[in-house]
């Protein structure tokens, strides 16, 4: 259980850091995880 707490601690810190970095760079984590068909505005739609 101590391991679980460590894993969750690491996971929580990663999530917070990820959101902070994404906000700083103007990224959308949501768009990056959505399938391209649902999200025509992802960077992958360059060079239309």
């Amino acid at each position, binding site marked *: 259980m101590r391991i679980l707490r460590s894993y*969750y601690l690491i996971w929580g810190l990663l999530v917070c850091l990820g959101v902070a970095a994404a906000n700083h760079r*103007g990224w959308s984590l949501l768009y990056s995880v959505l399938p391209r068909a649902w999200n025509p505005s992802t960077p992958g739609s360059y060079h239309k």
Partner: protein
Amino acid sequence: MKFQSSVAVFAVCPFCRSTVVRKDVAIEQLGTMAELPPDLSPLQLGTRGTFDGQAFTLVGRVRLRWEEGSWTEWCAWFGDQRYGWVAEAQGCFIVSFEHAPPDDLPARDDLAPGSSLTFADRPYRVVDIKESTCVGSEGELPFVAAAGRKGVTVDCMGDGGAFAGVEYSDAGARLYLGRYARLEELEATDLRAVPGWTPGVETDARRGVTGACSCPACGAPMELRAAGLTMSAVCPSCGALLDTSDAQLRLIERAQNQQRIEPLLPLGSRGTLFGTPWEVIGFLERKDAYVAWYEYLLFNPWRGFRWLVNYQGHWSFVTTLLERPDTGPPDKDLRRVSFHGETYRLFARGGAIVTYVLGEFYWQTRVGETTYLGDYICPPRVLSSERYPELLEETWSQGEYLEPRAVEGAFAPSQPLPERTGVYLNQTNPFAESWRRVRWLAPLFTLLLLVIELVSAGHAARRPVLAGEFVYRAADTNRMVITEPFEIPGGRQALRFTSHAPVNNNWIALGLDLVNTETQQTRSLEQGIELYSGYDDGPWTEGRSTVNAILPAVEPGRYVLRIEPTADPGVVEMPYSVAVTRDVPVWSNFWLGLGALLVYPVYAWFRYISFESTRWAESDYSPLGQSKESEDES
């Protein structure tokens, strides 16, 4: 004869069993004392120990009997004109000293279980009242303890294991104050070698110690496993109930017709639990209004008695408490009990009846015996109160859940123990630990995430870089619009596109291409604007006339926006506007992060609460809003 203690006035000769009374320097012989029944007590005359830092030696003992059992009082000589008593009953010890009774001591008939008393500024509660008779004594004693001496004993418990005993006899009332103690706490030495337990003293010797060991009802040979410390035994051959406090195994009642139940742990089997070897000496089945369960009485001569309770493959290791839990004010509907800093919640209470008995017990249990039970849980522990209305007695015990494999590993039964089914009242919730940990971390991370998002949003510039108004005309052959160039300074950032059109039961869609004028890189998105309304059993609307979209991670540079509108075929002409704002906060990051943070806590909570729901479904006092009672009603 030589008296060891100066306060002793009565003694039994260890050689001829003559009883003598000391009067000044003279000694007067009273008669002879019968041999005390053999027992498996680890104490003996000459045993030394310490209590609260003071050394003592056991110099005498009195065996007392009451309606349903017997116990031993050892006279402990502390030196310097001071003696105390070590009472030995049900495998535990009470060390007490005589005090002058208060002037306002209630008469015996004014006391009942539950009565409150105060001795030496300390509150006590009467737990047990019984008539006692001296059945024998040995060694030196500070009073004449002739066989047949009668009295009424009132046992009281105070906080923290405090004990008070009042003995009413023809000679008046005697008050004893002390507390409960375990043998290991007394640091006893010069203990007796216990046959079958002490290395080198073989089990076979136990037969000699316990004397006659054949059933008076059927003649079958019997082995008493805790002789002198138990009050009854059930013959394994004929099922007759025997009085083991009587050296001749007096027959209490013959067997009633009952179906034989084979215990999962046979009588006589030994196993080590919590570092102590235990022997199974008794087995009984109990039933309440709903279910039946099994209780195994365990014995160790130095640790006393414990119980193993078995219900549908679940096991609990139960110890009788030496101190009463904090139950709050008396006469209150008891729903919570505090003990050693933990709060126990009422799970079940009601009557239970003994339906099958086998082996030895420290009271005269028999089929049909009823008790009133209360179970209070704080998994993996359970506190149980047990009240015997006819015996004016209430006892508390604490159980600890045992994994079935721990029982199997300890006792190595010939047949594998049955798999457990369902959730037991004090079974450890396997998800409690993970839920307990993440339920504190998850809010902390949520707060941290919110702070991060608010700081990011606070630093976002939210600068408009384009705002244009255009008109869609169906008749136009080329409806594409290319805006004036605009600049996106700084680093990568998110853009928000806000489009508006006065749609009314129609739609317009804008294909937006953000074109970097230097690199010709294009990023596209489409915004559909639609608004419908009507009346079906009331007014309704659907859609919006203004829509927003975020384009993330746009590189800095010079851009134009290429707009290609399409619209409902019924639209001939419609104005629309497009605005672009740079460096806007991306709240979807927060919501996605929140979901990532909460997915495991939600899972852990769901598993935890599912387990608890199953547990409390068996209770009439569920804190979760569901109960056996409500199910039964439905």
